[in-house]
Each structure stands twice: as structure tokens, then as C-alpha cells.
């Protein structure tokens, strides 16, 4: 892949993909910006201003490449606290004073970026950060759940009492009130239901428009149609978004009168702190998701965000931060350069200018439902089992920080989390005094050997406190090099560092280099990540399955393999990642490791289990897949995907591509077949193939022209399922062989790549 050039040339080359990505992001950002403004206690326009300034300004002066900037989740919590405190109850006055604090925090951010304090982001322990983010999710959820059912002013103000109050008032508010209130609750709950069920909806074209926008569209439709029918506003006016027609001319300067008082500065500092953490973590996360693996200049970005925040604050908007959720949407829709951020901001401005009346028809409960859903996604309960599998002490740190944040607030929460992490490391690792003795001393050595290999040797220990030193050494290794990181002199390596290292290994491989971790064998399991355990295993047991006890499943698979002329390897070497990763299915996934490899001795076919993840940071989702890959290197098969549960459709580049009918009723009913070259595909699927596939309807298939990927379900396979899949693949291979021999023109050379 060619890296897009920066500057005007990059813009010229890529503006189309950037415009498309920016457009999709703006559709997501529009409702979310308004929602976040309301969650902050600010007028709706404030969120929109921040998104517009974030997009237009940061695109020009920023230092990252595919990030989206605008109002953020963590900031909403802090801003609400600021507005409430500074206004002393008067939300409007508080808003103008908070704007002053926002402007000042922007200045502080510029300062942070100028003295290169962007490195601070590397100092936060992973589990504590995840706990804090989950708490942010719950805080947002707790407050907005009330708006969702129609209670604009709940009695409590802290998250846990708010949650309690929600459940206790739910019945009365929703069920036993007047029709007008029930309508409000209905639109809120209905929106939430829609969001939850959206991923299950099979209708392909619906997925082109993001869910939050659907919610808004449907809610506005309800409002407009209902108003037309009943003659008066279907939802009471206080439940609709307010964007006054004179929003531009009624602009007032932010109120800096509190600048001499304590609360003003504590608000400004809180805003700066949370803005920098959220942005830095999002920027780092996006570096991993960037398809071109470009390294973002975090200090330049911080300065840009600071300037944008100052401008936004003056114009009445919220702080501008980098948001990972919208940035992920940006990347998965094909964004290439910063222009995508610009387009997103510009388009939102267009929406405000021309669709203002429509925007004022949005019912608040619908937006609240979006926030409740977002809050729930931030909490992400599916991550609990993943964290537990890393280590129970990580789970403890996660929940400890989570509750500390809920009870004491964001800054105190993360501070408590960091301190507790240190305590846990002190007591659990057996190297506690080493931490005290050596944390201020240099502990890394990087040198180049005669053969050009880089050796990084780590002394004493590696944890989140001395990670910045390790990071600067890692960053100084040129792309494409081979790096061996030797931990044999380290007493322990903590989870945060292991997580960062696995990210570096990915980046190294992506840039054509190679990175290996050695010396982890003798480290105690409570302080190494299972991914670390895996790479440790890989390092010492590459390709061999002796010396480790195979699990029952692996033994059965091994026996099955022997009986079917296949060779079984429990822990395949890392190069198998590439052989599986060639398919579009893995386009936006990163393969962590593979297990249970079965290679056929005579056919070019293998079965394997793949562990991958997509997204980073709070958006990370891990997945296991058992699949078979059938290579047909000399042929040039048509490219297609044969889908059963609309799995491929969920990938952005397949949504909207029409199904190809093979004229066989049963087949068309069972499968969704998609591909660019309709004719070749229809030729490829002969009657025998169709017949076979109708008889064995359990599998998904993807062909990328040179190989075919077959899988059943997106989860770990039992031995029985494995066997079924391999049998299917063997028969399919035979059938294909037969088809190709009978009809050689199927494999000629004029197929085009399936476009994104």
C-alpha cells in the first residue's frame, strides 16, 4: 500500500475516499454532538460548534492522520460538573463561565503540547484506564437514562444514586403517567431498543446509514408526522432540541469573571487533564488502526486541539478532543488523510445552516437513548472475561478504579487506580523493592549488532512508570528492522507494557520489520499477559508440539489429522498468520495468533484456528475463528463471498453490494452471494456446485482469486465441528478440481479486484 502523501498532493489524490469517510462520520457525529452537549448541560449548538471547529481547524494544524475531533465522552462529565458548580445552579450563567474555563484549558493544552508532555499518555496503566472509561460510560448512562424516559431533572446528582433513582421511578414515569409523558418515554425506550437490535437487522441497505442517525431520523419522523396529525407538537417543546434561529447573532463572550477564584481553575485543570488523557489515548489507539501505520505527532495534535478548544470556547462550543469511536468509523470507511476530519466538520456546518429546523424537531429522549447506548458500550461488559483471562489482579484493578471513579470523580479515580496498580505490583511480583530502588534509573539498552539486528535489553523491570523510556528506544528503531527485545535481566514485566509491546510487534510487522520478545520464560504468570505467554510459547516452541500437554480437544484433533492424511501442529509458527490474513474478512482485523493447525499432506489445504482482534482501546473486540483455507495458486478464480448470516455485509465495503442470483430458488434462499464479476461467478457455480452447497448449507466462503476461505461460525469450533468443516472442505476441493478441469475458461485472467 502506498502511504498517502501529505499536503496538497495527498489531498488531491485521496479527497474522494476522505469525503466519503467524512460524510459517514458526520452522520454519526451530528446526533452525538448534540447529545453530548445536552449531557454536558450546555445548549445543543455547543456540541455542534465543537465538532465543526474540531473538524475544520484540527485538520489543518493537527499531527495525526485519520483521527476525528469534536466533543468527547469524558469531557461531557467534567463539563457538566463545571457548569453546575460555576453557575451555582444557574445553568446558563454556568455555561458562559464554563466557556471561560474551556478557553483557558485550551491554552493549557497548547502549553502541554509545546513542552512535549504528550509522553504522559504512556504513563497510565491499562486496566486502570479501562476502569475509568467504563466508569465514564456508567456516569453518562446514569444521568441520561432519566432524560430517556422523560425526567429532565432527576433528584440525585451522583451516578450511583441516579441509577437507583432510575429503577425506582421507572414504573411511575413510564407506565402510570399521562399520554404525553408516555409518548416521551416510548420514543426514548423505542430508540434504545432500536439501537440494541440494529446489528441483528438483516436488511442490507439499512446498514449504510449508521444507527444513531436512524434513531434521529425515525424520532424526527415521529415528531413531524405526529405534529401534523394532532395539530400541536407531538412531543412537548421542552423535550425537543433547542437551536434558536438567531444562534449566530446571539453570541456572547465567555465569562472570565471567575478567573481569580479557585473553582474556575479547578474546572479548567480538570478539563485539561481529561481532555489530554482522552485525546492521547485515542490518538495512540488510532495509530494502531491506521491502515498505513503512520506515527502521529501527539504533541502537535495536542497543540492543535488546544487551539481548536480556544476557538471553540470563544464561539460557544465545548472542548475539542480526539474521539476514538468516531475515528474508528472514519478508518473503516476508508479515510486516508486529515481531509476526512475537515469534511466531517464542514458537513456538520452545512447541516446546521440548512437543516436547523429539522434539527429542532429531534426529541431529547432519542438522543438520550443514543448516549445510554454509548455509555453501555463504554462499559463493555464483554471485556470483563477478557481482562479476567489476562489475570485476576487486572480484573481487581479494573473494578477498583471503576468504583473509585464512580464515587470520587474522574481525576481522583485514575490517580487511585495508578497508585493501586503500583501497590499491587509491589506486593504481587516479589520484586517490590526493586521498583522503589530502580524506577528512577535508566534501565534500557539499545544497540545495533554487526548483522544489522537491533538488540533491546531491559534491566531491573518494566512497568507503566518506566515505560516512556522503553518507548523512546522502541521509537528510535527504523522501520523494516529486526528487533529482539530481551527481558532476561528483568525481574518482571507488567501488563501495560506487554500490551504496548504487542502493539509494537504488530506495527513492526506491518512496516516490513520483525520484532521478537525473548527472556520471558521464567517470569511468574501473575505478571505476564496471556498474550505474553503465547509469544513466550511461540518463541520457545515454534512449530513443535512436544513437551506440552495437548488439551483433550487437541489430542482428538491430532488423531483425526493422522487418520485423514493431515499433519497436526498445536502451536503453528507466526508465518501462518499471513497465510490466513490474506482474505477480505480479515481486512480490518489483526491476527494475534493461530492454533491447531492441520495441513493436508497432498492437497494444498489447511485448517486452523485464528485468534484476532479488531479495534483498539475501548473499541477492542477479540474473536476466535475456526476455518479452512484452500489454495488454488495456479488458477484465477472469480472473487466472491458466499454469506449465510450476513456476516460479510457487516463489513462496510460489502454493504450495499447487491446479491447475485444463481437462478436456483433453494440456493438463493440459503445464501447471499456477492461479487464484482457477476457473469464469471455465475459460470463458476455449476449445477454440481450448487447442488453440493444446497446439501451442505452450513458454511461461509470467501474467494480472493487465489484461495478460498471456509468457516462455519465466528467462534471456537468443537472437535465435531472441525471435522465437519474439514470434510466439507475436502469435498469442495474435489468438486472445484472437477469443475476447473471440465471448464478451464473459468479461471482466465480478466477478473477485477472486489472494490471496497
Amino acid at each position: 500500500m502506498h502511504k498517502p502523501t501529505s499536503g496538497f498532493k495527498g489531498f488531491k489524490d485521496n479527497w474522494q475516499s476522505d469525503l466519503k469517510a467524512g460524510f459517514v462520520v458526520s452522520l454519526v457525529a451530528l446526533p452525538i454532538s448534540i447529545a453530548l452537549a445536552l449531557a454536558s448541560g450546555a445548549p445543543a449548538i455547543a456540541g455542534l460548534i465543537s465538532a465543526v471547529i474540531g473538524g475544520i481547524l484540527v485538520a489543518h494544524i493537527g499531527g495525526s492522520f485519520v483521527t476525528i475531533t469534536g466533543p468527547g465522552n469524558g469531557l461531557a462529565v467534567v463539563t457538566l460538573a463545571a457548569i453546575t458548580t460555576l453557575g451555582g445552579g444557574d445553568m446558563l450563567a454556568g455555561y458562559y463561565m464554563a466557556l471561560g474555563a474551556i478557553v483557558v484549558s485550551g491554552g493549557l493544552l497548547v502549553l502541554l503540547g509545546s513542552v512535549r508532555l504528550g509522553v504522559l499518555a504512556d504513563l497510565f496503566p491499562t486496566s486502570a484506564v479501562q476502569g475509568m472509561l467504563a466508569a465514564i460510560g456508567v456516569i453518562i448512562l446514569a444521568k441520561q437514562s432519566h432524560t430517556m424516559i422523560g425526567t429532565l431533572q432527576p433528584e440525585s446528582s451522583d451516578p450511583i444514586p441516579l441509577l437507583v433513582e432510575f429503577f425506582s421511578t421507572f414504573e411511575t414515569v413510564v407506565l402510570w403517567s399521562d399520554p404525553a409523558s408516555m409518548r416521551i418515554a416510548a420514543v426514548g425506550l423505542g430508540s434504545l431498543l432500536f439501537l440494541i437490535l440494529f446489528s441483528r437487522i438483516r436488511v442490507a441497505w439499512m446498514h449504510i446509514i449508521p444507527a444513531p442517525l436512524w434513531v434521529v431520523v425515525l424520532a424526527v419522523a415521529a415528531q413531524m408526522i405526529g405534529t401534523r396529525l394532532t395539530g400541536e407538537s407531538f412531543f412537548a417543546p421542552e423535550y425537543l432540541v433547542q437551536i434558536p434561529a438567531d444562534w449566530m447573532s446571539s453570541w456572547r463572550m465567555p465569562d472570565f469573571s471567575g478567573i481569580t477564584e479557585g473553582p474556575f481553575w479547578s474546572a479548567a485543570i480538570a478539563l485539561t487533564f481529561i481532555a489530554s488523557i482522552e485525546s492521547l489515548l485515542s490518538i495512540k489507539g488510532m495509530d494502531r488502526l491506521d491502515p498505513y501505520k503512520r506515527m502521529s505527532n501527539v504533541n502537535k495534535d495536542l497543540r492543535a486541539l488546544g487551539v481548536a478548544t480556544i476557538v471553540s470556547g470563544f464561539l460557544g462550543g465545548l472542548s475539542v478532543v480526539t474521539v476514538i469511536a468516531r475515528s474508528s468509523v472514519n478508518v473503516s470507511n476508508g479515510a486516508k488523510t486529515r481531509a476526512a476530519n475537515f469534511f466531517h466538520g464542514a458537513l456538520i456546518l452545512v447541516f446546521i445552516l440548512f437543516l436547523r429546523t429539522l434539527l429542532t424537531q429531534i426529541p431529547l429522549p432519542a438522543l438520550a437513548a443514543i448516549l445510554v447506548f454509548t455509555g453501555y458500550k463504554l462499559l463493555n461488559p464483554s471485556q470483563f472475561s477478557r481482562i479476567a483471562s489476562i489475570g485476576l489482579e487486572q480484573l481487581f484493578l479494573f473494578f477498583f478504579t471503576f468504583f473509585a471513579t464512580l464515587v470520587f470523580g474522574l481525576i481522583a479515580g485514575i490517580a487511585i487506580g495508578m497508585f493501586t496498580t503500583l501497590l499491587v505490583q509491589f506486593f504481587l511480583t516479589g520484586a517490590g523493592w526493586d521498583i522503589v530502588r530502580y524506577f528512577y534509573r535508566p534501565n534500557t539498552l539499545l544497540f545495533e549488532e554487526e548483522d544489522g539486528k537491533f538488540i533491546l535489553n531491559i534491566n531491573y523491570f518494566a512497568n507503566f512508570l518506566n515505560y516512556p523510556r522503553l518507548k523512546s528506544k522502541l521509537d528510535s528503531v527504523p522501520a523494516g528492522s529486526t528487533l529482539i527485545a530481551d527481558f532476561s535481566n528483568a525481574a518482571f514485566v507488567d501488563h501495560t507494557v506487554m500490551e504496548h509491546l504487542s502493539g509494537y510487534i504488530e506495527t513492526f510487522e506491518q512496516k516490513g520489520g520483525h520484532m521478537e520478545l525473548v527472556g520471558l520464560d521464567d517470569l511468574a504468570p501473575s505478571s505476564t499477559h496471556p498474550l505474553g505467554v503465547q509469544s513466550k510459547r511461540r518463541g520457545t516452541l515454534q512449530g513443535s508440539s512436544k513437551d506440552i500437554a495437548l488439551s483433550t480437544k487437541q489430542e482428538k484433533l491430532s488423531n483425526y489429522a493422522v487418520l485423514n492424511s493431515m499433519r497436526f501442529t498445536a502451536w503453528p509458527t507466526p508465518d501462518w498468520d499471513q497465510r490466513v490474513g490474506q482474505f477480505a474478512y480479515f481486512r480490518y482485523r489483526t491476527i494475534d495468533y493461530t492454533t491447531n493447525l492441520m495441513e493436508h499432506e497432498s492437497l494444498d489445504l489447511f485448517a486452523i484456528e485464528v485468534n484476532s482482534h479488531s479495534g483498539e482501546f475501548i473499541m477492542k473486540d477479540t474473536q476466535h475463528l475456526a476455518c479452512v483455507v484452500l489454495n488454488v495458486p495456479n488458477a484465477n478464480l472469480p472473487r466472491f463471498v458466499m454469506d449465510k448470516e450476513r456476516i460479510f455485509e457487516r463489513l462496510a465495503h460489502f454493504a450495499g453490494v447487491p446479491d447475485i442470483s444463481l437462478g436456483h430458488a433453494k440456493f438463493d434462499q440459503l445464501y447471499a452471494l456477492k461479487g464484482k464479476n457477476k457473469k464469471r461467478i455465475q459460470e463458476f457455480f455449476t449445477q454440481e456446485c450448487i447442488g453440493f452447497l444446497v446439501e451442505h448449507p452450513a458454511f461461509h466462503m470467501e474467494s480472493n482469486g487465489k484461495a478460498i476461505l471456509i468457516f462455519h461460525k465466528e467462534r471456537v469450533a468443537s472437535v465435531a465441528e472441525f471435522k465437519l468443516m474439514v470434510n466439507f472442505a475436502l469435498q469442495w476441493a474435489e468438486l472445484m478440481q472437477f469443475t476447473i478441469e471440465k471448464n478451464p475458461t473459468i479461471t482466465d485472467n480478466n477478473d477485477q479486484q472486489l472494490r471496497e
Partner: protein
Amino acid sequence: MIKATPRTYSKIATAMGFSPMAKANLAEVHRIAQRCGAHLYVFHIGTWTEQCETTYQNFLSDLSIDPAQVTRVSKAGDPKVMLLELCSEYQIDLLALGALVRENMFKVFTVSIARDVCRKAQVSLLLLTSSKVEGRLCERIVVNGVDHPKTPDTIATAAWLATKLQSKELFVVDELSEKELARPDDDKGVLKGARKRKQMERAQHDRLTAVLGCCDLPNALDIKEQHVFGKPGYTIAHYAKAKRADLLVVNSPDTKLGLLDRIFKHDLEYILADLPTDLLIVHTTKALVNA
């Protein structure tokens, strides 16, 4: 360039403290003395009792050391002061001591002591970390290649010692400061940094080649040059540890104001705080050009 003069050790002394490591230390120093063709002096600070004599004789017989080849001197007084006095009196070239690998409160080897030893007694200091009665091979030696007038002599000494101890490899490690390199912000920064590093390495390589040119280097010895970026003092120690070297040879510290030395961490402090291997601090008379 002036020819480098190695310190050829002809008079080696060790301090006998009757600690648990005493026998092993004695064995080690005796072996070194034999290899270098030097005369061995055993200094004891304190009163020489009957028990001392018995133990000492046992050591000598166990280690098959001919008592006639060893000069034992015993003197009472403050160990730090007396040791240096004895070294001056007998014109010792090399003082070999058993050292603890890590400092603790009671036996602290600080830079000031090391400096005093080298300056006042005009003696090189060898700190032995893991002596063994049966002896160890000294196959790999790491020597500093820092840009300093003392360096050529130190390297020459390391080479001389390498021949005597029959070592196989000599690593000349040049520590380059990262101060001039800005922390890379983005991909372009990384490339610029890499280019700058290569430039600096090339410049230092030219210098080192000249330095090595004026040393008498034995042919049998495999001499490797290594440039490493990092904090001076710490980096060479970590390198010696990573490469599992047997001996680390460094320049002696320059004479500086004592107070400043204590406040600002000296390079040698890092090495002394956590000895990676045996350490030889070579005493040379060439002082700093700019104080």
C-alpha cells in the same frame, strides 16, 4: 598521535580481610599476578594474630602458592588510609579487591573512594565480583572508548591484559550522548534521528580507528567496535551485562570538586552501584584537557 602506553602491572596487591570470599579472592588475584608476571602483595590492616597466620598458611597451601613469591604486609590503623599508604609505599600498580555486586550501607564503594584510591596512591583498581577458587576464564573484555585523553592508555592496558589473560574478544564501547537527538515525534522524526545517529557513529568511528591505531594491539585478539546511544556510565555497564562480559575496563575518574560530584551523578556511580562484571579502573596520569 602519541603512542598509547599501557599500564603493565608488575606489582599487584590485594587486601586480606578474612571475609568468606577471602580464599577465592586470593586465588583469583594470585592467578592474575602469575599471568601478568607480577609480584603479589597481600596487605592486611589490623593486628596479625595467630589465627590469621594459620588461616593464611592454610590458604597458601590449599592454593599451592609458594610463600616466597608473596609479600605479606600487616599494619594496624584505619583501613582506607592505611591501604592507600601501603600502596604508595610499595609502589603498587594494581590493587585488587573483592567487591560486593551491589552497594549496601556498610561496604559502600563510592566514586570518591575509587577516585581517592586512584589519585592518591597512583594505582589502578580492580574490583572482583565473583571470584572462584578453581578460577574462571576471562574471555570477553569490554573497554570504554569515550573521547578523552585517558582512553588510548586504557584501551592499550585492556589489550595488554587481554594477552596476559588469554582473552578472545575485546569490545571497545563508545557511549554516545542522546542529548543532541530530539525525541522523535513522528515518522519523519524517526528517519531524521536515524540519519543523525549514523552521522555521529561515523564521526566516532573515525576517531576510534585513530585511537586504536596508536595502541599496540595483539593479532590474536578479536577487536570489535560498538557504538551505543545512551546515558554514559550506565550504558556501558548494561552492555557488559547484556553481552555477558567477564571484565569491564574504564578510565579513572577525573579530579573534580568533591561536592559537585556528590550532587550530580557521576558516570562511574552507575557502574559502581550495580557492578555487571569485574571492574578495572585504570589509573593514568593524563588529566582532563579542559577542567
